[in-house]
């Protein structure tokens, strides 16, 4: 194992064979308590199991700790990601992407009857019409990912179902958003116009 990039008491203890066990025990107790509070409905052993997995991941990534936060805070961020990934996987295990697309792509049909005033209603309708046209220009993968996201499916679950990863799906959706925004700007609608249309 290489030397730590920064000097931090936690890193030093975790990399010292004679002090590692004690540090791991101390960190584990803190992780478990935090996880129990954040995932109180996940069952008694959940926090213990996640903390154990997190400690392994933390030791693997310890050289990536740059000291920009307190070490336990950084460690907890890793543990929470593991925990949320696991709970999401369990929650969405029987949910398919098709459930969100229903074979109809990302069709936009929205009533605009809640906007006060005819002018605002017309403006909103025009923006939505343009948005709908631009959505037709997105790839099937982009439309599916956007539809699933708007339906509440987490990025990592979409990634699992498309043989991708969380970052790639985020980029896919970001590219779609960029394309939609550019198209709307080219049509004369600013970001303020967009947020104004849904106010």
């Amino acid at each position, binding site marked *: 194992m290489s030397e730590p990039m920064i000097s931090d008491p936690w890193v030093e203890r975790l990399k010292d064979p004679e002090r590692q066990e004690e540090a791991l025990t101390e960190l584990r107790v803190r992780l478990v308590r935090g996880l129990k509070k*954040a995932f109180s409905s996940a069952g008694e052993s959940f926090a213990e199991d996640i903390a154990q997995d997190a400690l392994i991941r933390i030791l693997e990534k310890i050289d990536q700790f740059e000291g920009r936060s*307190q070490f336990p805070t950084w460690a907890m961020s890793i543990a*929470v990601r593991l925990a949320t990934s696991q709970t999401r996987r369990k929650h969405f295990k029987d949910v398919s992407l098709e459930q969100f697309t*229903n074979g109809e792509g990302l069709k936009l049909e*929205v009533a605009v009857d809640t906007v006060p005033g005819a002018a605002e209603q017309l403006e909103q309708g025009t923006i939505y019409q343009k*948005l709908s046209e631009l959505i037709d220009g997105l790839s099937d993968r982009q439309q599916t990912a956007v539809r699933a996201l708007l339906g509440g499916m987490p990025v990592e679950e979409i990634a699992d179902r498309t043989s991708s990863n*969380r*970052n790639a799906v*985020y980029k896919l959706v970001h590219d779609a958003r*960029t394309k939609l925004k550019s198209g709307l700007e080219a049509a004369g609608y600013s970001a303020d116009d967009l947020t104004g249309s849904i106010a």
Partner: protein
Amino acid sequence: MPLSKQQVSSLVQLVASTTPDEIDCDGCLDHVAEFAETQLAGLPIESAMAEVQNHLANCHCCQLEFETFLKALSGMDESSE
């Protein structure tokens, strides 16, 4: 199956807040501990941290994870009392 009105609003909001160089989910995780401490201390969000803030605003997945993270941190702090 058309989008609901709420989904369209969410999409429009997402499109409006899109910036060219957004960090991805792993980039957010890399800085989220620092961001949380900054926010909990009530300190101003510096430009580097603004990218995290922007990602959280655009990624519902990371936003929920961040809220859970803050809760976990509060539980961890209680342990030291």
